[in-house]
């Protein structure tokens, strides 16, 4: 007992330190450039610098990031409890369509009421998609990859079938400036003059992080995703947590769809999620299943989309547009393949948990 008793190394605390320093340095450099380009004319006149650092690039980044952030949070909630969710794309699309139908059918309501109704319906339909995923993968023990695929195909098929091309949603969320904060130069313009779902997404990152790591619910959820039997042996109902979190996660993906219809585009289009659910999944992995990490990855992916847009606007033709459109996907591949060695998925994800009989 004596020899082994004394060993207890705080190894884990040092694991990501170098990465954190690199990130911090890169972040400070980036912020400095942003402030210079948007306040000093000498920098602001350079086309290339404007493409990379202008307020409009950053605004676009945030807009492109919101559905990715929400989708990644959906993935985190599901996977942290042990349910693999590749169906984020389908949940998102279902949420978008639900929001659209809700909005169109309440066009005669006051605008804000109608939009909020759309949000509520998007959340609810997302949660229902989560419940469906739960029922398939927990109750009927379907392989979770298959179950996720079902969600994607189901959402694509049903929304395309039911979509009425003549329907028009009237109006969408507009930006709400936060008094005081919105006046901060550059930062205020980018962060504090946004429509509601964007604020909600940013707040949700903090909420999910706090929930997962500082509350009873979070501790139990993570235990279900890492070692469900350990959770079971202390009296936690593993599958109940899995159902609940998959539904909450689904509602966030639904909200991401709601964002596309009610805040970004204002209308529904067939297949309008266009792979965002998968990019969100990549952001979740890139971010090591951590809310802030995933949000950071989502913003990075959003930024590459913004670059594409800014290059187009600035009329830069030296770089073929097709190459620029590839950037998000290349970043995804590099991020996911290069970093997967360092990130760690919840140990029990994708595995059915059976209470009685089975393993000893």
């Amino acid at each position: 007992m004596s020899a082994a008793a004394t060993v207890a190394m705080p190894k884990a605390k040092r694991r990501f330190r170098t990465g954190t320093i690199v990130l911090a340095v890169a972040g400070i450099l980036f912020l400095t450039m942003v402030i210079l380009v948007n306040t000093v004319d000498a920098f602001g006149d350079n086309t290339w610098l404007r493409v990379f650092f202008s307020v409009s690039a950053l605004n676009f980044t945030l807009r492109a990031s919101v559905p990715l952030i929400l989708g990644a949070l959906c993935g985190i909630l599901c996977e942290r409890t042990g349910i693999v969710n590749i169906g984020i794309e389908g949940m998102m699309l279902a949420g978008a369509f639900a929001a659209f139908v809700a909005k169109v059918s309440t066009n005669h309501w006051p605008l804000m009421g109608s939009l909020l109704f759309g949000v509520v319906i998007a959340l609810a339909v997302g949660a229902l998609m989560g419940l469906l995923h739960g029922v398939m993968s927990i109750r009927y023990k379907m392989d979770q990859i298959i179950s996720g695929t079902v969600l994607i195909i189901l959402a694509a098929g049903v929304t395309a079938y039911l979509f009425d091309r003549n329907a028009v949603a009237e109006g969408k969320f507009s930006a709400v400036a936060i008094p005081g904060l919105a006046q901060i130069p550059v930062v205020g313009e980018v962060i504090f003059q946004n429509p509601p779902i964007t604020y909600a997404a940013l707040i949700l990152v903090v909420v999910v992080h706090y929930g997962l790591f500082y509350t009873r619910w979070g501790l139990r959820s993570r235990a279900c995703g890492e070692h469900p039997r350990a959770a079971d042996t202390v009296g936690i109902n593993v599958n109940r947590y899995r159902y609940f979190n998959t539904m909450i996660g689904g509602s966030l993906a639904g909200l991401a769809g709601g964002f596309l219809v009610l805040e970004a585009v204002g209308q529904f289009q067939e297949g309008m999620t266009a792979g965002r659910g998968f990019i969100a999944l990549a952001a979740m992995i890139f971010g090591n299943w951590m809310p802030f990490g995933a949000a950071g990855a989502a913003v990075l992916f959003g930024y590459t989309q913004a670059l594409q847009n800014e290059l187009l606007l600035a009329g830069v033709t030296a770089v073929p547009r097709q190459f620029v459109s590839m950037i998000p996907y290349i970043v995804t591949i590099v991020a996911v393949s290069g970093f997967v060695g360092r990130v760690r998925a919840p140990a029990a994800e994708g595995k059915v948990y059976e209470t009685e009989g089975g393993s000893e």
Partner: protein
Amino acid sequence: MDASTTPVLEVRNITKKFPGVIANQDVNIRLMPGEILALLGENGAGKSTLMNIVYGLYHPTSGEILVNGEPVVFHTPRDAIARGIGMVHQHFQLVPVMTVVENVMLGDESTKLGKLDRKLVAARITELSERYNLAVDPHAIIEDLPVGVRQRVEIIKALYRKADILILDEPTAVLTPQEIEGLFQVMELLRGQGKSIIFITHKLKEVLHIADRIVVLRGGKTVGEADPKTATQASLASMMVGREVILTVEKEAARPTEVVLELEGISARDDLGQPALRNVSLQVHAGEIVGVAGVQGNGQTELVEVITGLRHADSGHTRINGKEMTNTSPRHITVEGESCHVPEDRHAYGMVDSYSIAHNLVLNTYFQPPFARNATINEKAINEHAAKLVEKFDVRTPSVQTAGRSLSGGNQQKMVVAREFSRPIKLLIAAQPTRGIDVGSIEFIHNQIVAKRDEGIAVLVVSSELDEIMALSDRIVVMYKGEIIDIVPRAEATREGLGLLMAGIKA
């Protein structure tokens, strides 16, 4: 009611049926306050099932449980915990990526305004660890802790929930002899403070050492009770198995001749890329059994994998019969090295669960005549071969066409051994050759291994059971943190000496 005569826990006529199996039948057990009750039985005797019922994880088919004389029904472990029952599971139920604090409070969290109160829990852990002499750092992450400390965390977890009845399921299986001694001291301390303990094991020596009373389980039934003051290892063993058992392996002195296996400066990394073997050099001669001892996870697995070609060595050389074998394919080593391998995990490496016994028996030879005819398989030859081996190695099965998975653990292992031993070989590598199988099969396999040695074959046995190493080996290699810390001739080896070496302490 007189407290000293009411059992704290009583199990009455418990029967538990799983589809196709009766795991427990009319089991009766009484646990008195402040006693250590040993529950003795072979693997598969139904000890763990019974305890999982008492802990509320399984529900009995019939029978009842009484705590302090009151009948209780446990739907989940939560109900059992509420009644003061705590369990340390054979496979620790700890979340590896979480801290000690998080693991201890899981399911019974202290919160302040909804926020987890880690400080309060850490303070309670420190208090418990001082009171019961269970040293542990509350903020350490489980996966960084050695096995012995993880076990302390499990005990603290039960005490944190105010358990008065502690169930320890095979707690000594993963410990060094010194750690076992430490655990026994903790158990005595707990008993001294009025806790009652059920100690599950299949190790006879330990039972006689620590228990106040012994209950023996066989085939899911209670077959008797014994008093450790009067019982002997032999009497307990025959109760466990139901017949006389020879506990020692009969063998003559080894007559080693030329070197068959030679390792020179082998270094390798584990699956996570961490160094697992550091500069390992070893020679195994024809006609001797070299045993590799060590606490699990000190490089034994990787050592076997390097020798058998399943793992890449970063440096060093493997030679078999003087032929260079470093980083060649497993088949090359099997065929050219004339070696065979009984792997430690028979389900992952030793057999194909869904294949028939006949097919399992030719996994290493199906590509050679007579089993292969050009590109096709000769089923007739395979079936004849299987029939012969099943008989010779006493594999109990209705037919050679039965799927491998439907055999019992002991018969599966005999099947693997039969396949590996049935070719002409010069080197035998056996990793955990008797893990999880019944005493009868252990006896059989041990005798087969000794017989191979006497035929002049070089044998390397890796085992985490010190008794097995002591029983079989002519020389004992002790591994610690990927290095060979010492090589001891069997005649000079003692349990205590090996235990110290296993803990990394070299005199």
